[in-house]
């Protein structure tokens, strides 16, 4: 998928006097990280296929402030958050979808206190709704019969109580969904949360992502499905460390749906 895609921005739509159905909040990982960019593009293919009128903020998007806040820098979080709220409210944004559970959590739970109240959806929830409304159709495809295990992102699952949407989406692939020993509310962190993504781990016996990757590989799954760009990075590293990259793939739920439907 190397074709350049037309991505409308909020500024363009506003200039034309239009408003999108939903704002796609790309997130820093989705915009800058090579691996996460593929997730962004897969999700865009789904949005196109479903004929969703969406837009992005483009150069006006800025970090939600999540890592700054979790790392204790409340001033920096407030700077980011208040400026983002001003931009979002300036465009009269009502609905936001994002492929990052950390952006999702911050936009959904932490911006209302700053005057930014939106209907915020994680992309797995959004895709699930598109499937239920029949706006996209997915039947098995390449992943039919494959063993898939879903890794619950902490900020989606325990944080916001969403365990089912990603699983419901994955069931559309006619795949064998297998659960890890620790899943849903007992799901085990990938190790990236709380700003750990941006620092070295503290001294210990083992990396958190190796522990989790071992558990995922132990299910015998050929695909580890993720719903977070940071989990994706951590699990991909873990699978490499276990020298299982030839047998086990780490893919985002959006990549699986886009891939299966050949959207």
């Amino acid at each position, binding site marked *: 998928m190397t074709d350049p895609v037309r991505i409308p921005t909020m500024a363009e739509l506003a200039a034309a006097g239009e408003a999108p159905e939903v704002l796609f909040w790309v997130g820093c990982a989705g915009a800058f990280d090579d691996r996460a960019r593929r997730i962004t593009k897969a999700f865009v293919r789904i949005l196109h296929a479903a004929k969703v009128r969406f837009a992005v903020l483009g*150069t006006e998007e800025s*970090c939600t402030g999540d890592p700054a806040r979790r790392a*204790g*820098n409340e001033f920096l979080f407030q700077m980011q958050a208040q400026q983002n709220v001003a931009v979002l409210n300036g465009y009269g944004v009502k609905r936001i979808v994002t492929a990052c559970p950390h952006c999702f959590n911050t936009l959904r739970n932490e911006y209302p206190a700053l005057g930014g109240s939106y209907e915020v959806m994680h992309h797995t929830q959004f895709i699930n709704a598109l499937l239920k409304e029949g706006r996209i159709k997915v039947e098995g495809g390449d992943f039919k019969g494959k063993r898939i295990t879903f890794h619950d992102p902490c900020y989606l699952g325990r944080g*916001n109580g969403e365990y089912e949407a990603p699983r419901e989406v994955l069931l559309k692939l006619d795949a064998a969904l297998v659960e890890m020993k620790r899943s849903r509310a*007992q799901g085990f962190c990938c190790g990236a949360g709380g700003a750990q993504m941006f620092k070295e781990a503290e001294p210990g016996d083992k990396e958190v992502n190796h522990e989790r990757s071992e558990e995922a590989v132990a299910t015998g799954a050929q695909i580890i499905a993720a719903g977070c760009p940071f989990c994706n990075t951590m699990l991909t590293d873990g699978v490499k460390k276990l020298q299982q990259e030839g047998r086990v793939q780490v893919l985002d739920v959006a990549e699986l749906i886009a891939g299966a439907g050949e959207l």
Partner: protein
Amino acid sequence: MSPAQLLFIALLAGGGILFGRNLMRVRRNILLGRDEDRSNRRAERWAVMARVALGQGKMVVRPVAGLLHIVVYAGFVIINIEVLEIVVDGVFGTHRAFAFLGPAYDLLIGSFEVLALGVWAACAIFLVRRNLIRLRRFVMKELDGWPRTDANLILATEIALMSAFLLMNAADLALQQQQVEHYVQVGAFPVSGPLASLLGLHALAPSTLIAIERTCWWFHIIGIMAFLNYLVVSKHLHILLAFPNTWYSKLEPRTKVAEMPRVADEVRSMLDATVPPPAAAAPRTVAGAEMPERFGARDVFDLTWKNLLDAYTCTECGRCTSECPANLTGKLLSPRKVMMDTRDRLEEVGRAIDVGKGTWKDDGRSLHTRISEEELWACTTCNACTQACPVNIDPVDIIMQMRRYKVMEESSTRPALTGMFNNVENNGAPWAFGPDKRMDWARS
């Protein structure tokens, strides 16, 4: 009034007053924390308390420990009806004052006995789990010394109390069967009946049996009064505080971090010239000492009262730590230790305030004396600990506030995080990519 009645009333009053004073001290310590309003959404709060504390909803996630705990919990609650009878008998010099209930009384005593046996067995199994099977969460370093002794003492005491209760009934039954005056023929004894036969109590003289019965009766009530007052020096306060602690649970999504309204106001004024900077906060005096306004938590005074209630509620079960990804991969962080350290520091501060006759003088120590940066920076904020806690304690909130203090008051953080801060500040992203590159993904 007989000397025994007077002695009993004195014991009851003395124990009660002491307990009241102890509880007031705990309350005072908890209120050393910052104010926070958690009185909203009352219907939800009652529902959480009913489900989590009353209904033990989170205990049974681990079925073995959960079911055994429910036996002990039910035993504790229901056997207290028996304690009520003991109190009535003690004050009025009666014997089995509730006997007039007839068949209902038989049912009560019978069920107390079955529960007492259940409690006895559950506590014995708990002792085995701690000391012989040595489950990881019970043998960790942070339990060395007093915490481990405390746990074993509690279990041993409960076994002793239950033994006394059953032996008392066994002796009572033997006395009833010997038709000794004063010992009315009442009650059902499904456990102490066989126990009496086993011990051959029927062959003993009434005077010996009365001595056994009275000794056990006094042991039981003295034991309960002592246990009540032991609670406050022990981790066992959870039997009371679990209820308020769950009522005051965080009701927002777990991963929502607590607000700092003052910082928000300051930033609002920085970004908008028409918004005046917030006025200086009103000085806060705690235990005769003026507390400076701080960003984040240096000491217990900077935490909220709910954090401190959490600390007193923690019974050191270690379910949090046994699900903590940092701890399970050998990092220093243990959420249980964070709670124990908070409580120990609060107790230390409380004792100093007692010595200072109600006033606090800075002792140069703080929460950070006990909880290291290495522990704070190991947390992934995954909230496995808050999910696991059977009484809704929130260690992540304390960790976050201590991180805030480190970063905003001491400018102390991990080097890579300083880089991340700089990137967010300069580029609006945690990496060194400028906003002009935000749309490159669509072109690649």
